[in-house]
């Protein structure tokens, strides 16, 4: 059963449509990331799920129960949700213990549960601190613990890590997603950071122009994006002209196998991820016959060294330019290279919209 089911939700502010017939299903116990550029309406979606806004049309079910729909709205306090806003928003006048216990009322296991969820986020030792005595990352973890404490049917997180600096973000993110998994929580996380979405979610729903354009597991979204917009949003994308025939794409960088579902035969665009390129030196050596097929001659130019790897700008014989990711940047300056592509690529036919068919 879906823990969350959104169907056909519309929402406008004045005359500006924000959500257009949006649908989304999230399975019990999984973490879904709604990924989209700023202004795509993802925060509005979250606020509708929480009950802070009412949809103009459509239906929202949490745990099978209709909480928003034609028949009316269930107020936020009766939706069994946990909400983690951007800056955590710990109640400044309450200690960590009372913040986390806020949603538990006078339940008998109150103090036990407070320590239990604080332990999940690794902060049980800070239970008597006041919010201003915590670092930003700790505040954020307490905010997650507070949301988890009443065992909500659904936890909603609004860009919860974006206010943290880069070094801290990864650590807090893994602690929080581990905590939510340990507690068996179902969660919807809203973010504009593709790395965040891909690394901690079971389901990535890419949102554009007020609707979900693709919802799938992170690997599928990255490797087989449903259209070029999605492809470019979830990672670096290299687009080359291609002719599709019999499951292969004929391109300037070779004859590349296409990933299913296959596009119709004809001309279109092949999508290659920069890390699919294999770059080797071409100092008079013959074309290496790699397992990825014959390599093409090209010239490596400008490089940006990123530490863990490097981006190379490579000019093809036609004058077209592609970007390749390489673990070994090689010597600086222009040099002749062999270029081949590893793994299957995605084909998209042209049209008004570059829709994968």
């Amino acid at each position, binding site marked *: 059963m879906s823990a969350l089911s959104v169907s056909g939700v519309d929402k406008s502010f004045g005359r500006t449509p924000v959500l257009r017939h949006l649908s989304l299903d999230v399975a019990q116990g999984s973490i879904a990331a709604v990924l989209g550029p700023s202004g795509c309406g993802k925060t509005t979606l979250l606020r509708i799920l929480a009950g802070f806004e009412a949809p103009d049309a459509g239906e929202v079910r949490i745990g099978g129960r209709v909480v928003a729909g034609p028949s009316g709205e269930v107020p936020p306090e009766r939706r069994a949700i946990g909400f983690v806003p951007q800056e955590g928003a710990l*109640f400044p006048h309450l200690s960590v213990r009372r913040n986390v216990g806020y949603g538990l009322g006078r339940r008998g296991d109150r103090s036990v549960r407070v320590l239990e969820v604080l332990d999940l986020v690794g902060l049980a030792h800070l239970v008597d601190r006041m919010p*201003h005595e915590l*670092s*930003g990352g700790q505040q954020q973890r307490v905010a997650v613990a507070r949301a988890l404490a009443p065992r909500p049917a659904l936890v909603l997180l609004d860009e919860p890590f974006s206010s943290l600096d880069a070094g801290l973000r990864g650590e807090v993110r893994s602690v929080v997603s581990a905590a939510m998994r340990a507690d068996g929580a179902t969660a919807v996380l809203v973010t504009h950071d593709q790395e965040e979405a891909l690394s901690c979610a079971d389901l990535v729903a890419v949102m554009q122009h007020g609707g979900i354009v693709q919802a799938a597991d992170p690997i599928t979204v990255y490797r087989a994006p449903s259209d070029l917009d999605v492809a470019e949003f979830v990672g670096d994308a290299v687009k080359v002209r291609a002719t599709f025939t019999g499951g292969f794409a004929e391109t300037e960088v070779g004859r590349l196998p296409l990933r299913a579902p296959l596009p119709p035969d004809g001309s279109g665009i092949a999508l290659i991820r920069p890390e699919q390129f294999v770059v080797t030196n071409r100092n008079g050596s013959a074309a290496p016959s790699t397992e990825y097929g014959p390599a093409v001659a090209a010239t490596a130019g400008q490089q940006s060294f990123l530490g863990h790897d490097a981006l190379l700008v490579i000019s093809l014989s036609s004058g077209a330019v592609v970007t390749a990711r390489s673990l070994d940047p090689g010597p600086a300056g222009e040099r002749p290279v062999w270029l081949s592509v590893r793994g299957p690529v995605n084909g998209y036919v042209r049209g008004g919209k570059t829709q994968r068919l």
Partner: protein
Amino acid sequence: MAAAVALLPLGYLVAVAARADPAVLLAQVVRPRSLMLLGSSVGLAATVTAVSVVLGVGAAWLIERTTLRGRRIWGVLAALPLAIPSYVAAFSWISAFPDLAGFSGAVIVLSLSCFPYVYLPTAAALRRLDPAMEETSRSLGIGPYATFWRVTLPQLRPAVAAGALLVSLYTLSDFGAVSILRYDTFTRVIFTSFNSSFDRTPAVVLSGMLVLVTAVIVLAEARTRGRARYARLGSGAARLSARISLGRMRTAAYGGLGLLAATALGVPLLSMAYWLSVGRSGELDLPRIMAAVGGSLVLAGGGAVVTMLLALPVGLLAARYTGRLPGLLERATYLGHAVPAIVIALSLVFFTVRYAFGLYLTVPLVLFAYAVLFLPLAVGAVRASAAQSPPVFEEVARSLGRRPRQVLRTITLPLAAPGIAAGTALVFLAAMKELTATLVLHPTGMDTLAIRLWTETSTRSYAAAAPYAALLMLVSVVPTYLLGRDRRRTGGLADLEPQA
């Protein structure tokens, strides 16, 4: 209801004016006496505003942007004159320099009392200013003084204009100081004509003219605000601007600030001390002083409670909902700021005499007047303290299963409580110092500190007035200092920001 409270007096004034014969009204308006009053009131307001702007901006620049020593102390000294009621300052000056009566005395006393209205917002604006703009200007080859004129000053304009507006409104509505200094403005003549004759037409006409002048000033200020934006663009932490070393001008700067502090604070204190020591040789009328203290406490305490009760819903509404109705409600309560106390008091007199004679000259009527006068103060405090708990707190609380009423009790009110308490204290102090409405409306036989001071001063028994002046100053200065200290200590929202 709070808005109705605020609007009632003005509405009544309009109603009375509308019922009267237009020809009679017009005759009153164009009387030479009325026009002369218009000239003297506007002239005084303009002069006091100009002097206050020079003093306020100058002090703010010296204290915030130069390397003078003792900036914190200078800052406190420059803000303190605000705490001394202008009629107390007027008492101290006229008792020390009896020749000061008239225009020059009014300008000196009111400017020295009012310049902090310009100093405080200007200093705050200088502190908030993004140094990157001045630095950019300098990097483009513009010298420090030209940069101040071309970049810094234009950005200060809204702050200075807001301060100047307050100064001119204060001057126009001031009754105590001009009366004690015997300079005829609208307020003083309205009071005397109300006191001395049964024909209320002159008082109503003059009140109407006064209200019109204040309205013109408020509108003019709104127009000049212009369309430029003065906010910092982009994010990033603001740094502090580099301070300017004054070099040889240093001594002059210390001298100027010293003279300002000496005249604005020293003269009132010394003069009061002198009259107190003179008065000790006579008998100190203790029972009378205690009665006045009691009266002040009763009226100010009641006024603070009533005002805050009315302000709570308006302030909470204004902080939470941006819409036409809450905006209008809030603005209505701000009338108390723009309409002079004498006008509000008189309209309440007329109203009760005609429709509710039982209330005429009673404590409830005084409390009602305080509510009209001080609602802006209280609404502002409630609004600011409700902003201490941004809506996201309430949303989180509701998502955790609490009903709206429980959220109000467990989150919103606890977070707003310190601000509401401070707001109540502010109203209490303001009511304690209030002279005009109290004088017109107080029950016969009831004394307050302000009324005693006024009565004794108007018969020139300065020694007898001194204890009341001293008590009023004590009541004003000490809590102002405490409130200021408190506000610095609570970090408020700053604590919430991520610290990583």
